């Protein structure tokens, strides 16, 4: 396992890099004013998350994270940015409650995050009692046997979402004048 010198150090540094990418991308996504930078932050965060999923022995989910989040979600948001130019305007006059609102949002989110982290770190998680190996083969078998109904329902939901998005986005377009 440790044939290459310093491989554990390299692994740990790659892990730290993935964590920093995830957290930093999330911060960029939330804090930047331009929407296109937010989308880039979301993509960056997804890359880091895919690395973390790989460390969690789920390579298929890591692949799907890149494929769906970066390839589909971010590209769709970029299309919407192109069509709707949704940038936040710079505040004309400093609004009186803006700073207070930011402080309140920071306080609430920090409180929720700290509470969740505290619960996660303090809870006595049980040790692993393995019954399966979590390979891609067992994933496919359980998708088509145990979770077959949920799988089909997800496909119905996706089909309905496509139809709904088409109907919503089509509404209000004028037909071309003859």
């Amino acid at each position, binding site marked *: 396992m440790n044939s290459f010198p310093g491989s554990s150090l390299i692994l740990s540094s790659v892990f730290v890099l993935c964590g920093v990418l995830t957290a930093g991308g999330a911060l960029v996504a939330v804090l930047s004013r331009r929407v296109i930078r937010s989308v880039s*932050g979301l993509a960056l965060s997804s890359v880091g998350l895919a690395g973390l999923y790989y460390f969690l022995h789920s390579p298929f989910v890591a692949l799907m994270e890149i494929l769906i989040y970066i390839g589909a979600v971010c590209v769709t948001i970029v299309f919407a940015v192109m069509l709707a130019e949704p940038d936040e305007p710079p505040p004309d006059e400093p609004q009186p409650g803006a700073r207070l609102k930011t402080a309140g949002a920071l306080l609430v*989110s920090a409180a929720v995050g700290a509470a969740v982290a505290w619960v996660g770190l303090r809870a006595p998680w049980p040790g692993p009692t393995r019954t399966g190996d979590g390979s891609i083969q067992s994933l496919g078998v359980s998708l088509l046997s145990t979770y077959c109904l949920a799988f089909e329902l997800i496909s119905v939901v996706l089909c309905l979402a496509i139809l709904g998005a088409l109907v919503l986005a089509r509404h209000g377009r004028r037909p071309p004048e003859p």
Partner: protein
Amino acid sequence: MNPLQDTLAPYLLLAAALLAAGIFGLLQRRTLIGLLIAGELILSGASLNILALNRFTAPDPAAGQVFVLFIMGLAAAEVTVALGLVLAVYRHYRSALTRTLTDLKG
């Protein structure tokens, strides 16, 4: 001493950080697409939490992976519908700021 990537705590801390960033974005952003991106961050935090507990404590590791795949499918569907709504709102109001959406009458 396990290496860092084989312990549960850093994953849970990162998931909590993603949740906090998403809630901050939901409270702070003023555009519809910004709110959507913050919601995606919250869903990512939930996925990371599920996969971490799935790796370290769950009996059958396939269950959590299937669950996260379903979360991704639902997130994609949500983004599709929400962006259709954003486009419809932008055509109607010529703006995608949350402040301008004040009347209920179409």
